[in-house]
């Protein structure tokens, strides 16, 4: 069976949806965080597949950027998480509610 670009698309759509559902449903901030990474990687997969399919390198360059940003984000995000845990002794997103009236 030839793995066509459509298959890549479907896989990446499934990954993206899984990530989204994870972000919306999970309460553990680290899991939410990982789900976001999943969504980013789904996007990366789409870029790579289409880049290869269209013979254009732009997509691959974007992926490099996204990976860099994701790394930075992971660093900042984890730091935030730790700071939050120190204050609240929890990393449950339900507790992120200081701005609520």
């Amino acid at each position, binding site marked *: 069976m030839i793995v066509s670009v459509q298959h890549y698309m479907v896989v990446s759509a499934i990954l993206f949806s899984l990530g989204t559902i994870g*972000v919306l449903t999970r309460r553990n901030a680290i899991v939410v965080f990982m789900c976001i990474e999943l969504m980013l990687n789904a996007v990366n997969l789409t870029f790579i597949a289409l880049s290869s399919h269209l013979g254009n390198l732009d997509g691959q360059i974007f992926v490099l950027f996204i990976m860099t940003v994701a790394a930075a984000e992971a660093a900042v995000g984890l730091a935030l998480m730790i700071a939050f845990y120190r204050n609240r002794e929890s990393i449950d997103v339900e507790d992120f509610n200081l701005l609520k009236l």
Partner: protein
Amino acid sequence: MYDNLWLIPFFPLLGFLINGLLGRKIKNEKVIGTIGTLAIFASFIVSCMYFVRLLGDDIKTHETIVASWMTMGPLSIDWGFLLDPLSALMILNVTGLSTLIHLYSIGYMHGEDGYARFFAYLNLFTFAMLMLVLGNNALVMFVGWEGVGLCSYLLIGYYYEKKSASDAGKKAFVVNRVGDFGFLIGLFTLFWALGQNGVWTINFTEIAANTGSLENGGIIVTIITLCFFLGATGKSAQIPLYTWLPDAMEGPTPVSALIHAATMVTAGVYMIGRMNGLFAMAPDTMMTIAIVGAATAIFAATIGFAQNDIKRVLAYSTVSQLGYMFLAMGVGAFTAGIFHLLTHAFFKACLFLGSGSVIHGLHHAYHHAHLHDDAQDMRNMGGIRKKMPITFVTFFLSTLAICGLPFFSAFFSKDEILWWSFASPRGHWILWLVGTAAAGMTAFYMFRLVFMTFFGKQKTDARAKDHIPESPLVMTLPLIILATLATFGGLIGVPHVIGNTVGHIPNLIQDFLAPVFAHTQELHHIHAHGTAAVEFGLMGVSVGIGLVGIGLAWIMYCKYPEIPARVCNRFSRLHKAVYNKWYVDELYDALIVNPTKRLGTGLWQFFDVRIVDGIVNGLGRCIRGTGELLRHTQTGYTHSYAMSMVIGVVLIIAICVFQ
């Protein structure tokens, strides 16, 4: 030669500033009183100098401009002063009387709280009055006009802890505002009407020179003069705006003498005299003025019959005498009106100061005996002539003067007015009749006052009656001077009919004022026509009726003192109506004051509270409510934000894809 006219109002202003700003620090009554009196006296000296200079000058009208006030398009207004025979006479009158009354106040106000405040206000008043009479244009006059109104308000409410005094002050101010409104409307209309012919001016001499461009007897000139006359009725206490003057007696007695008898209340008469050319062009207005004047003269006199407060009787007498002056102005007897203004200033100031002297003495006696009787009620007086001989003699002479007995001052001025109201083409025999009747009534109520106060048995409380002192020299000296003027002052205006009979006595005041009034009287043919026999006859009638009034008062209040009570019982309803001043105050309350109050309350409770506040508060409540509603979309849960973001993104993509 006339460049330093500004000195005349300057000295009182200086006195006001010193006493007003430093009075609390000075504290010493003698220093304060001396500063106040000297300031006016200096101004009196300057006035005399200019008066003498004007007498010897061939040119009778002099204007000096001190500074420019404002310039608007074709109109430029200056701080300028005008000296002509009319204003020269007025400044002499104002500064002279003011000096005497300041002197008197040193004694009368002794020991009162706010001694410096009193002298500061009195100086400020004199300043404003001098601006009023010296101003060379209507706006400077208006500054003085408002200034005297302000000082009148401040001085009526001098005993401001007393509610009746502060109420009386407010009443005077509000009633005067009605008149001031008329003055302003008249001024605006005059300005506009003259401007139609290309002359934009409010300068008195220019107004006088350009009145010819207005239609003689036309509707415009009638409206203008009627508006000005409304202003005069407010300031000079004529029907319908006289009600504030009797209440103004709440102020200290020197204030009543200076402001509410001799000077301020005559401002309306002066204003008409100042614009005589304009008024003479409106016969309808002149007739209105004459009728209002005559009606006020007799109406106020009737109220004077039944008042028991010595100052109130004098107040109604002032209203009545002012009515005479307006009657004179209305029939075109401008000179006689100004002449009566002068003589009235002499005798009425003397009467007021005399009554003040009596009140002062009684007050002293009551204080000595620790009593709290009313020192102004004539029913507590009687037989005071033995206690206060100087006060009595001066008061008696002034009373003879106001009654118009031969060769006293008002004999000349009042008879001149009555003669003109009979014989002038603008006059009518009914006006003469009303004026003569009022003269008889004046004689009656004035002698009622004299008999109740100075003659008969002493009705003062036995514990106090032996402690009534004669007033000190600072108070009796002005009385003596004023009584002399009230007795002999009329000789400056001996009518030709007497002057020619006796010898060659000139009518000084008529000759002196001729440059101001003669031109108008020539132009409009206003002259008193009649034979000497008729004039003598009318004179005899008015003197006779005055004697009848005096005789009646003697019978009722001296010979048979039980008569008044019987008359009051016989005509109890009439007496009650007169005693209550014909219920005019109540009528005004019912017709004007209360409806205005109700309108104000209604507007406050409905328009202000409901609509104005409603809009403001409603807007706030609206925004608050919207926020309250939108608040629920902000749950504070990260999930719901993420969810709404996802939904949003999906929607945007869906729109992009399916467009």
